[in-house]
């Protein structure tokens, strides 16, 4: 073994094709998730919180210098006296949220997923989770939703949060679900970690008559050949992949499981146990410790023996770049899912 610079990267002295020749794209750091022509709804979390606050004086909002980037600024504008700017201080953000919860309030604490899961872990564990306090930790930029590279890509946040006793972990799909889930967790008496899609958020589940229920996985689309079990925006990717695969005669069901913990093992195992379908989990997260491994564990514990594959990010620190390119590169795009599912079916 040699010790030296990270060999994964192309050394600077080796010529690379110019970006334009590679068809490279760029995207802004704070771009909304690519909606690919869908309807969008602006800041569903912020607006839902404002709506809740009208009747609930216990709701307060805290952030660590990321109010504008977690849609909490909508709440801050509507209720300035219930908004607490904690500065660039995530330990304080979580501890102060715990203190306010102890005094009877329902704090929504927002930051980026990397800063909550990595930097503030001990503070979430000891001040919030161990005490089972009703603090709602709502985090933007989960998984691969920015091209800024590992400093901002929380590819392991679900694994980290799943490991924490008492913590409920949510990965909503779209604007409709973000709105519904925000209202549901406000009523839930314990701590919650919720991944946030912010800015202009696609509107997908509305057309399916979907209703979020904490702890429940729901079938969005039936199908006979493949059972996608997905969370977060990967559910919309699976729905698009299912439509594409249908044209090739492959029938895909999509079971959306926004609650990563506690996982809806009963529904997932019952759907998988119907048999005759390739089970494919799809998540915007590392292959280690997220939805896929949670589902695999549930299937194994319940003696459900079925063909099983995972669509997930690799267990690597990811590249920086444009988000659509990165989703292609790391297998989260509709085209990538479609190609791989066909391959797996022919294995």
């Amino acid at each position, binding site marked *: 073994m040699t010790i030296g610079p990270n060999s994964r990267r192309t050394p600077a002295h080796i010529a690379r094709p110019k970006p334009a020749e590679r068809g490279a794209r760029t995207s802004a750091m704070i771009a909304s998730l690519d909606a690919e022509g869908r309807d969008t709804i602006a800041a569903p979390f912020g607006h839902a919180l404002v709506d809740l606050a009208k009747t609930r004086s216990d709701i307060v909002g805290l952030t660590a210098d990321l109010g504008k980037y977690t849609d909490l600024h909508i709440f801050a504008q509507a209720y300035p006296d219930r908004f*607490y700017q904690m500065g660039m201080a995530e330990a*304080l953000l979580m501890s*102060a949220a715990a203190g306010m919860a102890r*005094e009877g309030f329902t704090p929504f604490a927002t930051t980026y997923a990397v800063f909550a899961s990595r930097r503030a872990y001990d503070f979430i564990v*000891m001040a919030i989770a161990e*005490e089972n306090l009703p603090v709602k930790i709502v985090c933007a930029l989960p998984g691969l939703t920015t091209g800024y590279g590992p400093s901002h890509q929380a590819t392991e946040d679900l694994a980290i949060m799943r490991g924490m006793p008492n913590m409920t972990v949510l990965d909503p799909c779209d604007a409709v679900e973000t709105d519904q889930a925000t209202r549901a967790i406000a009523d839930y008496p314990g701590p919650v970690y919720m991944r946030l899609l912010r800015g202009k958020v696609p509107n997908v589940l509305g057309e399916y008559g979907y209703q979020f229920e904490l702890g429940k996985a729901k079938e969005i689309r039936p199908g006979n050949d493949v059972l996608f079990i997905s969370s977060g925006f990967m559910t919309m990717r699976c729905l698009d992949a299912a439509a594409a695969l249908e044209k090739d005669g492959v029938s895909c069901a999509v079971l959306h499981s926004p609650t990563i913990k506690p996982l809806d093992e009963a529904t997932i195992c019952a759907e998988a146990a119907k048999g005759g379908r390739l089970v494919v989990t799809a998540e915007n997260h590392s292959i280690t410790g997220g939805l896929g491994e949670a589902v695999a564990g549930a299937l194994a514990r319940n003696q459900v023996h079925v063909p099983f594959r995972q669509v997930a990010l690799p267990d690597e620190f990811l590249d920086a770049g444009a988000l659509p390119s990165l989703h292609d590169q790391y297998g989260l795009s509709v085209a990538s899912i479609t190609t791989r599912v066909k391959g797996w079916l022919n294995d």
Partner: protein
Amino acid sequence: MGEVQGQGYIGQALGSADVLAVSYFHAMRYRPGDPDWEGRDRFLLSIGHYAIALYAAMIEAGILPEDEIETYGMDDSRLPMSGMAAYTPGMEITGGSLGHGLGIAVGMALGLKRKKNDAFVYNMLSDGELGEGSTWEAVMGAAAWKLDNLIAIVDFNNQQADGPTMDALATGPGTEAAKWQAFGWHAEEVDGNDIAAVVAAFDRARNLTDPKPRAIICNTKMCKGVPFLEEREITHFVRVEPEEWAKALAHLDTEMPE
């Protein structure tokens, strides 16, 4: 309690006993039979391993029954070795992981202000916790939010697990108050084993009118009151032999009659 285990954070307990006595028998508002009374002053022990000292104070205050002393640190006890809120009436937070208390205190102080509750939040922290970055996040946050209902009590005994705190990151007696003042706090240093001085410092902290949080840096002596323990070199975690307990108790009884 320490005798049951034969060892423990006895040095810290003896060193901070005077400050706890002033807290519970001079400064704080509480109802012994109703530890969750909304009007109580909140006392947050971020140094969870000092729990033995706080249990003693709460037993004296009538918050905890005296006969539970014997269960300290045992299975199924409400008095675990490190202080935890879920176990013990009157214990406001789970401490032990250092650098947490003051941040939670900031949130509680903000919450009390929202409720227009005039109670104080006291956070007792240790000199070792001044090395934790999170403590300084909370110091800044408290000043930014003008939390005049928050009083930090720093037990400065100059001992942390690996040796003197002043060999680590803390700047030490004589300079510590200036650091807090520079961060926007009222801060003063006192001899934490001089009851009259501590009483006066608590009175000043409670009666200031400036919208600033308050810090009292209490310079204390580990194992205070038991000379043969005070002389020990390593006092972070003290083992006391069975025959020494009697000697220690006899000395305390002589020096501090009822």
